[in-house]
């Protein structure tokens, strides 16, 4: 699911070749486990089928990797919807959150905004968990505490990242 969205995100600014998409994805998002060629082929086919991307041109040689893909309007709308809507906070959400944030930042969106939006969502869940904790028994408290700590860890990473980026921007400016 998120591989397709990642490809869409990578295609938002410029068309890319198939092999380019795989390369960037491996470098940025999955250095430990490079994508299978089959996965690439399947993902791109599905995107094509849903009309989120189209073929822009072809390199000589065969295979889907040789094709150049460009994003369609529907694809752009999909990317926006995915990136600009906060992810449903779940305890073990790091990977998706991480991916989203890095993509968002790569594409020039404001770190503060992402932070603020995500924080609001996280805090909403944390509030609910806290209420449950106040009324619950010991087991309930343990579970809620566990979740709360992980949620807090997310937020703290977000804050630090935002701070780092602000710092970088200030130095570059």
């Amino acid at each position, binding site marked *: 699911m998120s591989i397709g969205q990642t490809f869409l995100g990578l295609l938002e600014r410029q068309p890319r070749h198939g092999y380019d998409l795989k390369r960037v994805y491996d470098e940025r998002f999955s250095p430990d486990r490079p994508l299978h060629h089959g996965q690439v082929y399947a993902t791109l086919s599905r995107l094509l089928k849903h009309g989120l991307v189209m073929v822009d041109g072809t390199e000589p040689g065969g295979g889907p990797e040789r094709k150049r893909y460009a994003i369609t309007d529907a694809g752009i709308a999909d990317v926006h*919807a995915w990136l600009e*809507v*906060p992810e449903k906070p779940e305890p073990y959400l790091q990977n998706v959150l991480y991916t989203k944030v890095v993509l968002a930042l790569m594409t020039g969106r404001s770190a503060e905004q992402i932070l*603020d939006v995500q924080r609001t969502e996280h*805090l909403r869940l944390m*509030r609910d968990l806290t209420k449950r904790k106040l009324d619950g028994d010991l087991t309930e408290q343990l579970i809620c505490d566990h979740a709360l700590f992980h949620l807090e860890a997310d937020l703290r990473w977000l*804050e630090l990242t935002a701070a780092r980026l602000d710092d970088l921007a200030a130095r570059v400016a």
Partner: protein
Amino acid sequence: MTTDALLVGTDLHKAYGPTPALAGASLSLRAGEIVAVMGPSGSGKSTLLHCLAGIVAPDTGSVTYAGRAVDRMSDVERSALRRADFGFIFQFGQLVPELTCLENVALPLRLDGMKRRAAEARAADWLVQLEVSDVAHKLPGQISGGQGQRVAVARSLVTRPAVIFADEPTGALDSLNGEKVMQLLTTAARDTRAAVVLVTHEPRVAAYADREVVVRDGAARDLTRVDVAGRAA
């Protein structure tokens, strides 16, 4: 701004010397509401608290409490207001070291004119509620940090204030003591229908509030009032 707001700070500016601490911060508080004020260190959260509480007068902007203009009151009037209607909890260093915990909790009542016996009786009740009645006759130097903060919370509640201002109340405490303090504070506040302005940088502490306000570079944005486009969780 909603009309049933109890305490409203509008476009507050405050500078200490050349450094601006607040640059256009606004916040409104309803009766019985718990609001968390969050932000990185140096962002001006404590200054916002001081302005709202009438401890410090803002350079520009207005602070209104129950319809009265706090920022235009004299120092004596603000002091009287704080004595009667507000309660305070700080991070550390706030209990008078030479008074017992009971006397510390009774102090705000005595300052307002209550007789010693009555004040200490009321204080004892609050110590029970905050689960620290066993330290009533000990000195602050003889008790642990967690117990001390609970005594401080009891002190902030003893005058039945309309608003409690808490500035990093769990900042010096470990997780368990912090949890205990927040739990007791919020329970007591809700029981007495006191509003709370809770300054903190910790999300888990802010989770005890009804909503949060983020302060950045001296400006406060009340985010839950902003419409979040699309898919809000």
